[in-house]
Every structure is written in C-alpha cells, then in structure tokens.
C-alpha cells in the first residue's frame, strides 16, 4: 500500500527554467510534508517542508505547494541549476501511536524522482 507516490521516475529540465516535481498521497491523517534531495553516496538532505495548515511555503529558489483537497503537493525550483540534479523524495508525516498510546513521527517516503538539469 503506497501511501505516498511520485509518479514521475525522472524529469529533465534546461538550466534557468522551472522544475516541477509532483507527489500524491492517500492518507488524510498526514499533516506535515517534506522534500528531500539525495546525491549518490550521500544521505537525503532536507530541503523544505510545509504543514497542513498552509498551502504554500517558500525558501529561496524552492517553493512547495500543498493542495489538501486533491491530496497533492509539488516542489517548484526556479531557476533550475545543474547542481540541482539529484533524486528528490517527498515524505509525509502524521501522528502515529504505539501500543502504549504514545505518539511518534515516522516519515513515509515516495519512490523518488530523478531530476536532471542540463546546462
């Protein structure tokens, strides 16, 4: 049961143009969403996040949009740079509870999208 899906395995963009990466989720209990970037031989690096009480969050060249009714989020990178070439993962978190009733916050990831930015 894939609760977070990134339906595009890859995306190719020209330098200077906009990159749009998409992510869909099915669990309506998710209320915190994150994007991570991953280079080969490195761990995922946190990029930007958004809580369910917002529909947009910006940080420099990166903007995340959340459409709760469609259960869809997207990451916009403007302008795209060759150094942005990496695998991008979206992740979602909600209030999970263990057998003792204590909450914890696991991340559920999509499969990733390989972004290639051409000079």
């Amino acid at each position, binding site marked *: 049961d894939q609760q977070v899906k990134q339906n595009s395995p890859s995306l190719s963009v020209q330098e200077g143009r906009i990159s749009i990466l998409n992510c869909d989720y099915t669990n309506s209990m998710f209320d915190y969403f994150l994007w991570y970037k991953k280079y080969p031989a*490195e761990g995922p690096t946190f990029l930007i996040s958004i809580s369910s009480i917002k529909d947009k969050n910006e940080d420099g060249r990166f903007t995340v949009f959340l459409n709760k009714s469609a259960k869809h989020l997207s990451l916009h990178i403007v302008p795209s740079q060759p150094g942005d070439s990496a695998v991008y*993962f979206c992740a979602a*978190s909600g209030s999970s509870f*263990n057998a003792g009733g204590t*909450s914890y*916050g696991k*991340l559920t990831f999509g499969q990733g999208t390989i972004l290639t930015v051409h000079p």
Partner: protein
Amino acid sequence: DAGVTQSPTHLIKTRGQHVTLRCSPISGHKSVSWYQQVLGQGPQFIFQYYEKEERGRGNFPDRFSARQFPNYSSELNVNALLLGDSALYLCASSLNVGWEFKPQHFGDGTRLSIL
C-alpha cells in the same frame, strides 16, 4: 556543527550472520530514527527511539532490533541476515519525537551487502 554520523560506511556480510550499525545524532537531538532504503525505492521506516525508549516500529521482522544510549547515540542490530537485507541503512535525528513539524536530518548511511 557535525551532522548525523553513521558507521561503518560500507559492510559486507554473508547470510546468517549478525550486523551492528551505529549512529550519532546531531548535538541536542534526542530522537533517532532508522530507515532502510533498497535500490529504486524511498526509505522505509524501521524504528524511532526517544530518550532511550522505542517509540515506534515499522513493518520489519523481529530480526531487527535497536537501542539508544544515554548520549542519544543508537545502534541497529540485524540477526540471521538474508539476501534481502542488502540495502542502504539510514539514521535520522530530530529535535523531538512527535509530529510537531520538525524535520528529520539524515546521515549518509551504511551500505550493507549480503553475499
């Protein structure tokens, strides 16, 4: 400031053996989580620990266990290794344990190969 550090970076084991992976969180972070990433997929949640207590566990067999020490570092143990355990094991730390809108920060992982 040092990020999340994991050791070793690479490990080769044979089926049936046991392995211990180690993680040191970012200074000040009390929560440590472990994830498994197999090729072509996103990371999958294994455990979350906070203040030395297991807070959450993903859908992994009992061969997987972990613990957290008083200095908040953590170990992931896997017994009776199977070929399917070959993966990148990622450790992440965060300031808190719940879902209060704080990101988890990842180390570079341990690449485990089972022969």
